[in-house]
C-alpha cells in the first residue's frame, strides 16, 4: 500500500454525506409510512421496492464511493448483483407454482 502514503487525496465536502444521510432518513420514513397507512397490494409492493432500491443505490454510490470508481470495479460488482436480483425474481415466480401444487394436492386432494 506504499503508493497511498503522502498522496494528496481529493475529498468531498461533508455536505454530500449529510444530504445522503437525510435522504436515507426520508426514504426510510416513506417506506415506514407505506406500512403505517396500510397500503395494500401492488401499490404497497411497488413503493417498498422503489424506496428499497433508492436507498441501496444511494448507499452504494455515495457512501461506498462506487460512483467515483473506475468502470472496471463498478462492472465487476454491479452485474453479479443485478443477476442476483433477477434470480430472486425468477425463484419467487417459481414459488407460486409450488403453492398451486400444494393447494391442489393438500386441500383438493389431487
Amino acid at each position, binding site marked *: *500500500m506504499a503508493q497511498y502514503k503522502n498522496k494528496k487525496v481529493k475529498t468531498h465536502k461533508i455536505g454530500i454525506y449529510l444530504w445522503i*444521510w437525510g435522504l436515507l432518513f426520508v426514504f426510510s420514513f416513506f*417506506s415506514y409510512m407505506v406500512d403505517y397507512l396500510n397500503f395494500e397490494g401492488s401499490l404497497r409492493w411497488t413503493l417498498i421496492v422503489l424506496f*428499497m432500491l433508492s436507498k441501496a443505490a444511494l448507499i452504494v454510490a455515495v*457512501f461506498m464511493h462506487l460512483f467515483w470508481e*473506475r468502470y472496471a*470495479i463498478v462492472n465487476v460488482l454491479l452485474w453479479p448483483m443485478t443477476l442476483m436480483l433477477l434470480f*430472486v425474481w425468477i425463484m419467487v415466480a417459481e414459488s407460486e407454482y409450488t*403453492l398451486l401444487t400444494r393447494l391442489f394436492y393438500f386441500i383438493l386432494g389431487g
Partner: protein
Amino acid sequence: MSRAIDKLPKGWSGLTSDFSSDQKAFKGISWGKAMMWIFILSDAFIFSCFLISYLTGRASTTAPWPDASIVFGLEVFGTSVPLLLIAIMTFILISSSGTMAIAVKYGYEKNRKLCAIFLLLTALCGAAFVGMQAFEWTKLIFHEGVSPWNNPFGAVQFGSFFFMITGFHGTHVTVGVIFLLIMARKTWRGDFDTGRRGYFTTMKSDYLAIEIMGLYWHFVDLVWVFIFAFFYLW
C-alpha cells in the same frame, strides 16, 4: 501534481483498457479494498440465498403468514404502534452509516481525532442496534413463544426464517462493532500516523484501513435495507 491514474482512459474504453492492461485490473484502488469488495460480493450471495429461501418459503406455504406490523408492534402509552422498534432500529443503523461515511472522509484527510470520534459514534450506534435486536428476540422467544420450530401467529416457517436472517445480520453487526472499536483505538493512538505495526498482521497500516472498514459497515446497512423491505414491510 497530476496522478498517473488521471491519464488513463475513462468510461467504457477505460474498462477495456484496464482489463487488458498489465499487472492489475482495478486501477486506483488497493488490493485490500478490492478484496473487501470481493468479500462483500460473496457475502451478498449468501444473503441472497436467504432472501430467495425466505420469499419462496413464504409464498409457497399454505398456512397464513403472520402480519409483521402486528408481531413487531410496540405498546406506547397504551396505544400499539406498528413496527415501532424496527423503525427505530432502521434509523439508528442509517445514522451509523452516516457517521461512518464522515469517519471515512476524515480518514482520507488524515484527521486523526475526528476520524476516531466518528468511528466511536458508529460503534455506539451499532451496539445500540444489536441491543435492540436482543430485546426483540427476548420478547419473541420468552413472551410470545416464537422459535425456529414454533409460531403462534401463523406459518411455522416464519420463526426459522426470522431467526436465521436477522441472526446472521446481527452477527455481521456485532463483528462490525468489534472491529470498529479496534479501529477507533488504533486511530486514536495514531497508529496510522506513526506507522506502528499491527498486533496480528505485524504490518504497518494506513488510513486506507478506515475506508475498507467503511465498505464493510455500509454493506451491513445495505443488507438491513433489504431485510427491512422484504421481511418487515412486505
